[in-house]
């Protein structure tokens, strides 16, 4: 036995990398249950009982038998055969309920449900490609969590130890992920764990798909959800009719995906819908409303912004306790947007708000990997004002109610399942000792009380380089540690295999102990570090189950300066109401009020005269009078324009701002089923920047990746309103087409093993469009035949609604405007002729850089042309682009607009229009029309906007000089008479941002946006990056690949 430790290790295994396969084997072994046998009867006496129904009993007795609570009260006789537990000084709580998890779920592959996870061979490319919604990508509603439970998940034990007795567990990773179940977290047989199943169908936006596979964008995913719900509703009707009289009818096609969804719909089973932020909540509630779903939202951290709507509809919300925090290891000089800081601060206020408004809500662990993190999250919500009783409810009775199992779970009442926690304090309290946890009446081992702690002998905060002494040499890891005064240690451990959160860290004397969780798939094991610290060095052992090795380390960096407070992010000292006031300034109108007069302006009415020394009267957001000698009513506010120019709000007929989750659904050649309207992002700062450039209305378009793209959204830039508030009500809907290099993908990367998408030539592009309309005609006929049959009193089977074809029929019926991206004269002509052949008109040709070559044909067809001022030469089809295009087409009678296709260029569309004066010699008025009245005509909204006329919307821009001059700067921008941009107010807005960021981030500041030297930003280690930060590239069709 004189072997050294190292030799033993070598003999036993042979290197650090043994740890992985060995650990994997060991993880695969089923956990040995710690269930005590035999199951006795219990009586907990003299305990304080928090029943969870609002009642608190002192010195009460709780009797458990046969897995149920049989009696609760201060006057309850103790059965003779009961195992009596002295509850003095302890409190009985209902067992905690984690409202959404994947606890106990093994990762079994399901070929069908994984459809759409395509890729090159070796990356899942053996799957057939997804040709559209009909191929049901990421759809496995038949998968039942209850059928997939395994006790091998070690998290079951750690959750249970912390007081969790129940959880909803649900499959994930697919759009229709499957059926959720309520399970008890005890027992060694999965069957005995299930309390109720199914309790909900889980919907997720985290399914397969991508750049080349449908659905590849958020709008694609949302359209897919809608199509499936529609299909399920349809199948319900068709099957009923068919089963009633099958004879003589075509048999409906069997679809495995729809059965479970239909069942859920008909039984009123709730659907778990993902939504954090306000705009996401709006989208999900819209879908729930449209298809009559019973919604349960999950995520919910941004619900602070939608409390009223949720309360009104009584929509339950599952709130994730993984509060947003700063990204780890992020650029210290990178700016954290105010919007992000605001969300981080407000997120944890959500529970209090929901509680106050009476919205049913429950907590869930989200992506957290340990109960200690869950409890950190609970405490944070309580710090933000959530009453402790409401917090307990959100972890007990509330989820039980939401999932319809409050008749058996969620409170300490006779007859309910015996799920209890016996503890010294509320289970989330920092110093709590959990004395016992009962699941289904079984008692589980009490949590080992923390070791007696000595005061820490040293501050271990800082960056440590750790070296694991493996027989194959040292393995490096980095630990970022933060210690609070009482010795609690938190932080993060990074190694080759990613990073782990440090849990249960404590410095006691010179001993440092902490744990991390080592995960493989859904299984995980704890790894324990037991170290001795001497100054800037440490040494000790790391153990994982039966394996152990030596570790040593040294401190390589200072402690993060601002993190001395127990590693927890110091609650910023900015009151929430101050933040909300700031937010209203940052994202909202300069002021309310939509009645006023402007005088002393050069008024470009555009449709009529230009008036020097003129003005307008605006009443209730509409233009009430225009003239030089206005009769201004008493008391009406008067704005002196100081001789500046007043023009109608600028209209950008081609924009890609305010679109979330991808501008292209480029996976298929025809994606008319998707629409930008589903993914309007009202929080995009590009809206404000556009207002600062005088833009008041935009045509938010799908990208140009396919011959027939998605629907559009015509928006008024009412900054601060939600998506619905941005919509230009009454604007005809549109759709994007695209010709030429982009849809044929001449420049896209070709991946080995991935078939190229048809089309690859201009022949194919036209063919795709012709085919699509041929199909759409058939579809229209099917519906007309059906309607005729119904009118004739027959009972035909209704055809399926196909959103892709439905939108094309709208084009044929003249109800949807086609905005066609095009460059070359020949393809322009081809499209015009194809449209004529199919019997519709192209509303606008977009870009249309060679439009000047076929201007007469364009004019004769009646299409508008929306072009760039002077971009050229970036690709072959733009080589003949000339800056005279707009003027030349105008000369030939085409209605022409100048658009931006760019979040930058849209900020000076006035100058872009002015270029048509230089190149092609348009008059100032004609040039101004290119960005006002003409795009309004093209978009079918000229009755509302585009000129300054009595009765029109008061969308106005005030410049300090001639509107098209390079030296003129926008002073004010009004939409519907409301001032949304003001050059003076912009300075105040900027000051507000600076001030709040200073307060939130401390002296270090956010960045050195303000003049002066930068100081490094204190950034906190955190468990996860916020969901709010989106780093999407700004899209432009010009840069399409």
């Amino acid at each position, binding site marked *: 036995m004189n072997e050294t430790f190292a030799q033993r290790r070598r003999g036993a295994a042979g290197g650090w990398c043994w740890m992985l396969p060995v650990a994997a084997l060991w993880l695969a072994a089923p956990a040995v249950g710690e269930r005590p046998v035999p199951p006795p009867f219990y009586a907990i006496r003299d305990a304080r009982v928090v029943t969870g129904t609002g009642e608190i009993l002192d010195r009460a007795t709780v009797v458990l038998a046969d897995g149920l609570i049989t009696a609760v009260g201060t006057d309850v006789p103790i059965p003779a055969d009961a195992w009596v537990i002295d509850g003095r000084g302890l409190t009985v709580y209902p067992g905690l309920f984690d409202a959404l998890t994947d606890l106990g779920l093994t990762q079994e592959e399901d070929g069908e449900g994984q459809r759409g996870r395509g890729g090159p061979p070796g990356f899942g490319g053996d799957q057939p490609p997804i040709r559209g919604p009909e191929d049901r990508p990421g759809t496995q509603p038949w998968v039942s969590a209850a059928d997939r439970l395994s006790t091998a998940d070690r998290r079951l034990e750690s959750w249970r130890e912390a007081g969790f007795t129940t959880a909803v567990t649900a499959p994930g990773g697919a759009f229709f992920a499957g059926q959720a179940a309520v399970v008890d977290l005890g027992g060694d047989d999965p069957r005995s764990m299930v309390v109720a199943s199914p309790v909900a169908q889980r919907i997720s936006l985290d399914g397969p798909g991508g750049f080349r596979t449908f659905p590849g964008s958020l709008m694609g995913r949302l359209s897919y959800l809608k199509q499936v719900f529609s299909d399920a509703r349809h199948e319900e009707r068709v099957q009923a009719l068919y089963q009633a009289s099958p004879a003589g009818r075509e048999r409906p096609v069997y679809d495995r995906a729809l059965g479970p969804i239909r069942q859920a719909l008909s039984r009123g089973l709730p659907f778990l819908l993902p939504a954090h932020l306000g705009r996401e909540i709006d989208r999900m509630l819209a879908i729930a409303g449209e298809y009559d779903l019973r919604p349960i939202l999950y995520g919910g951290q941004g619900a602070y912004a939608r409390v009223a709507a949720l309360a009104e509809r009584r929509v339950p919300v599952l709130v994730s306790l993984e509060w947003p925090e700063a990204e780890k290891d992020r650029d210290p000089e990178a700016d954290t*947007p105010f919007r992000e800081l605001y969300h981080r601060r407000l997120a944890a206020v959500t529970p209090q708000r929901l509680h106050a408004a009476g919205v049913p809500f429950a907590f869930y662990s989200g992506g957290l990997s340990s109960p200690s993190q869950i409890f950190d999250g609970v405490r944070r919500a309580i710090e933000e004002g959530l009453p402790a009783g409401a917090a307990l409810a959100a972890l007990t009775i509330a989820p039980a109610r939401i999932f319809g199992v409050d008749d058996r779970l969620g409170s300490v009442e006779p007859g309910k399942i015996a799920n209890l926690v016996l503890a010294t304090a509320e289970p989330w309290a920092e110093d709590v000792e959990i004395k016992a946890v009962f699941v289904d009446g079984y008692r589980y081992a009490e949590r080992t009380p923390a070791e007696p702690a000595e005061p820490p002998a040293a501050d271990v905060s800082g960056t440590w380089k750790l070296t694991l002494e493996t027989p194959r040499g040292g393995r490096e890891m980095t630990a970022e540690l933060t210690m609070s005064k009482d010795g609690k240690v938190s932080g993060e451990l990074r190694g080759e295999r990613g990073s782990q959160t440090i849990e249960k860290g404590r410095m006691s004397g010179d001993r440092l102990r902490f744990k991390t969780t080592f995960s493989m798939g859904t299984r995980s094991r704890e790894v324990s570090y037991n170290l001795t610290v001497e100054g800037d060095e440490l040494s000790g052992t790391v153990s994982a189950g039966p394996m152990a090795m030596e570790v040593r380390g040294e401190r390589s960096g200072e402690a993060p300066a601002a993190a001395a407070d127990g590693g927890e992010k110091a609650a910023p000292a900015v009151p929430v109401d101050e933040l909300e006031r700031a937010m209203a300034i940052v994202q909202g109108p300069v002021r309310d009020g939509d009645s006023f007069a402007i005088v002393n302006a050069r008024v470009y009415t555009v449709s009529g005269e230009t008036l020097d020394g003129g003005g307008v009267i605006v009443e209730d957001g509409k233009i009430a009078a225009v003239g030089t000698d206005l009769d201004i009513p008493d008391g009406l506010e008067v704005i002196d324009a100081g001789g500046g120019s007043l023009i109608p709000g600028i209209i950008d007929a081609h924009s890609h701002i305010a679109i979330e989750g991808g501008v292209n659904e480029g996976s298929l050649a025809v994606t008319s089923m998707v629409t930008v309207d589903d993914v309007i992002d009202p929080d995009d700062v590009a809206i404000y920047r556009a207002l600062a450039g005088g833009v008041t209305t935009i045509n938010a378009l799908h990208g140009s990746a396919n011959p027939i793209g998605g629907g559009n959204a015509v928006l008024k830039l009412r900054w601060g309103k939600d998506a619905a508030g941005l919509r230009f009500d009454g604007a005809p809907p549109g759709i994007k087409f695209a010709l030429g290099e982009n849809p044929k993908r001449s420049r896209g990367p070709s991946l080995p093993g991935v078939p190229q998408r048809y089309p690859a030539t201009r022949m194919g592009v036209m063919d795709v469009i012709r085919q699509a309309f041929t199909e759409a005609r058939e579809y229209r006929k099917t519906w007309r035949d059906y309607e005729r049959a119904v009118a004739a009193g027959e009972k035909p089977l209704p055809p399926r609604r196909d959103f892709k074809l439905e939108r094309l029929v709208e084009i044929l019926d003249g109800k949807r405007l086609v905005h066609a991206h095009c460059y070359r004269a020949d393809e322009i002509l081809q499209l015009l002729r194809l449209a004529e052949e199919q019997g519709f008109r192209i509303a606008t040709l977009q870009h249309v850089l060679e439009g000047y070559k076929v201007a007469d044909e364009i004019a004769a067809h009646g299409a508008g042309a929306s072009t760039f001022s002077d971009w*050229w030469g970036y690709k072959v089809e733009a080589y003949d682009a000339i800056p005279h295009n707009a003027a030349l087409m105008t000369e030939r009678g085409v209605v022409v607009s100048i658009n931006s296709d760019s979040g930058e260029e849209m900020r000076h569309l006035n100058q872009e229009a002015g270029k048509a004066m230089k*190149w092609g010699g348009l008059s100032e008025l004609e040039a101004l029309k290119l960005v006002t009245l003409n795009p309004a005509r093209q978009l079918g909204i000229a009755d509302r906007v585009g000129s300054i006329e009595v009765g029109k919307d008061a969308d106005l821009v005030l410049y300090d000089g001639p509107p098209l001059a*390079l030296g003129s700067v926008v002073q004010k921008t009004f939409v519907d008479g409301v001032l949304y941009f003001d050059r003076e107010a912009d300075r105040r807005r900027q000051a507000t941002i600076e001030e709040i*960021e200073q307060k939130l981030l401390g002296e270090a500041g956010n960045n050195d946006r303000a003049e002066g030297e930068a100081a490094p930003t204190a950034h906190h280690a955190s468990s996860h990056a916020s969901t709010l930060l989106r780093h999407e590239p700004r899209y432009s069709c010009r840069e399409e690949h």
Partner: protein
Amino acid sequence: MQATIRGKNTPLSSPVSYGGEDRRSRTRRAGRRWLRILSRTVAVLLATAATAAAQPLVLDGGTIHAAAGEEPFAGRVVIDGGRIVAVGEAAEVPEGAVRLDVAGLHVYPGLCDALSRIGLVEIGAVAATVDTAEIGAYNPHLKAITAVHPASEVIPVTRETGITHAVVAPGTDRDGVVAGQASLLHLAGWTVEEMAIETSVAMVIAWPEIQTRSFDFATFSVRESPFSEAKEQAEEAQNELRDWFDAARQYQRAMAAGSDRVERDLKLEALARVLDGQLPVVIQANAKRDLEAAIAFAEEQDVRLILAGGRDAWKIKDQLAEKKIPVILGRTQSLPAEEDDPYDRPYRTAGELAAAGVTIAFGSSAGGGFGPGGPHSARTLPYEAAMAVAFGLPRDVALAALTRNPAEIFGRGDELGTIEAGKIANLIVTDGDPLELTTEVRHLIIDGKEVTTDNRHRALYEKYRARPGAER
């Protein structure tokens, strides 16, 4: 490709056909335009005649804006042998000189695109026509002029707004650091030899920046990498750059000592010209920390620094002014870098730098040049400068940034940038302020010769404007 330079070999005819009568009479402005075209043609004919005989040229009767910031005056400019020989009311008209009447017009120094890819890119998306970036991270020995295509259609298009010369710089591929040497070129000439003012005016370096965000074209999405990783990568690349400079210094010493063991190395030889002080370095950087690191590098290596890009230069403007480090700014019309930045942050940068005393210029590809515009948008350089004027840049400084400053930044202040006797005759004759959109450049004098303002765009315009009405 049609010839774009009208020189002695060009037939004395108008460049395009003006189409049928019916088309011209269709709009009310047609007559006016016809006159304008006619007068331009006459001017070209005159100029052509002048250059054909290599006679002196006199711009007579215009208002001369000899130098940005100075009072304009009436007078004449006398040009001979490619140089300005006399300026002023009393300037003597040499015998046999061709007189160009510019009465009522304005004479300005020709504008300069201070960092450009003109001639290196014909069509951005067609790799076969792009010669900006060579393979490899270190190519100090390459010179832009080697790949400049004198017949590029981009050149005459760019000239139309008054840009007469440009510093054409190579770029780098994604991982490139030393791109090569920039060349100062006339935007006219039958060959690059005729275009060349100086084949090498600076060594161009793309500073290895800390990049946590990278765009993945395979998935069309932005990838984030941890900061510490990105920082390590950048520092490694920066150290490699130092190694190259150290090696060049060593090489130079060995060569000076007449070593016969050290083999000749063209790359190190080229870098040594920087160490000698023969060439300044242009370092493209945008973030504050990268600008500062570039300054530290230049100081440590004792080389003359010109910064390009300079998105955050306003954050260190006092330092830049104090150290007399000039900045070639990229596009004024760009988006704020951060969400919370003021909407007009990029618009204000030039003005703030100028107010602090920093010497600025504008370059169409100074910001890095990625994007569809590239050299094709170089013609809007005066308009981008004008945008900066609207946001605080004094107008005369804007004009200096397009004329005198680039000349001085690249050490050619005695040859270009103002209208003074002895300087290279790059001039424009306009009907107004070149920073105004509606101003037209009536005459372009490059290297002492009048050059046409016609270009591919105007030719296409006139061709299709003359298209008879389509019948259907």
